[in-house]
């Protein structure tokens, strides 16, 4: 058991470009994280412009160029028509079901996550302001 644990610890400490200590990271790390993030954003842009997301060929970007007029920083907020305070994904589903005449996505659907990554990226720099309209 002890031998196994030691081996596991060595393995954990060993990955290619993770330095030895918790508070150390390199420029290469930052670049990698950035690349991973931008890949997620691009994937989101793909879903946002995918005519197969709904059933009528309409895409989100048709009405929301550059993800504009979506204010992810204002969620959760009160939506009169939903009868309560809702998170962003509920409103995304509303737009999928209505203008796109599609089926709603589960909150943990990878496409739901991708859309949120893209629209949040397009609002980068805007201050977080939940509850606002």
């Amino acid at each position, binding site marked *: 058991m002890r031998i196994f644990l030691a081996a596991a610890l060595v393995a954990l400490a060993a990955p290619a470009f993770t330095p030895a200590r918790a508070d150390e990271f390199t420029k290469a790390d930052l670049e990698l994280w950035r690349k991973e993030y931008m890949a997620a954003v691009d994937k989101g842009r793909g879903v946002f*412009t995918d005519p197969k997301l709904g*059933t*009528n*060929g*309409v895409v989100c*970007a*048709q*009405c*929301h*160029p*550059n993800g*504009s*007029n979506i*204010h992810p920083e204002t969620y959760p907020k009160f939506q009169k*028509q939903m009868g309560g305070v809702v998170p962003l994904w509920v409103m995304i589903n*509303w*737009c999928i079901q*209505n*203008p796109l*005449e599609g089926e709603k996505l589960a909150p943990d659907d990878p496409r739901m996550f991708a859309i949120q990554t893209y629209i949040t990226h*397009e*609002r*980068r*720099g*805007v201050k977080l302001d939940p509850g*606002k*309209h």
Partner: protein
Amino acid sequence: MVKTLSRRALVKGASALAAGGVLDMTLVKLAFGAPSGAGDFTFAYISDSHIQQIEGGKFVRNWDRGLKRAVAEANLLNPKPDFVMFGGDLAQLGKKEELDHGLDLLSPLRYDVKYVLGEHDYYLDLGEYWADKISKHYYSWDHKGVHFIVLNSIIVDEAWTNKWATPMERMLVMAGLDDPRGSPFMVGEKQRQWLAADLAKVPKSTPVVVFSHSPLQKIFKNWNFWTDDAEEVQALLKPFSKVTVIYGHVHQIQYNQIGAISFHSVMATAWPWPYPETYAQEGSLLPVMTVPMNRADPFHERDATGWQFVDVHTGNVALSYSLPDNSPRVVAYDEKLKRPRDLQYSERTIPPHMHY
């Protein structure tokens, strides 16, 4: 004083629509204090219907409904408009099926219709079907003392036009308003020469009205709210004492004045677009005098869409926006300010609907 279509009148209009009645536009007959004279008449303006084929004979319902409603309402105008302009983007992806279906929906109009070409009508076959079936790409005519010109303002350079593997690939890229692979619109050298020759025959005191799809002024390059040679076109119009440019493409209310040229945009029947300032990553050149519309509410399907009727009075225009889900708006040339002014809306703001 200018009278505008009241909310009650519009509601009356809407119920008249249901009852097959008449939309009484004597209510919007405008009086600028100046006597009536040459260039006193009205026309209607319908634009940006984006008829979109799903497959076979199936089309996106929402966009069909917007155009049908505009056509039905325009048919009720009293007094009758002298003609109807269609401002471009009849189709979404330039397909024959979409253009044909769009023409079908426009066919109940009881007036002469004239057409402006939009990028969504053009980039599949470079306007071939349009020229065959619908209209010339650019032309001019005279009507009751006003010189009218239609330009094709949505062309781009040849290298871009020819670089795509298929016509549909080119169409899809241009149809994505925010697609970074797009290219800025222009009128181009050839049409500017034609325009110079056309204007050479027109006395400088004749009111001139120019219809284009893109703005003929520079507002926001990312979304092609832009015409790259706008300054050159404006220079050709500059010698005239009364010029109005009316454009589609932007799916929102905009207006501006540059020298003697008044600019007005028209609404889409299909869907509204946010103002460029709502895109946090770029600055915009939205004309400072434009009072933006409130944010659209998607729970109202026709919010911030509509059509307009245009009163041409002694050569200047008043644009009345007929908006099914909103209070009507009128933007008219103000003789004192020497520019278009939003007659009622200048002070009105509803806090939750502000852009931010």
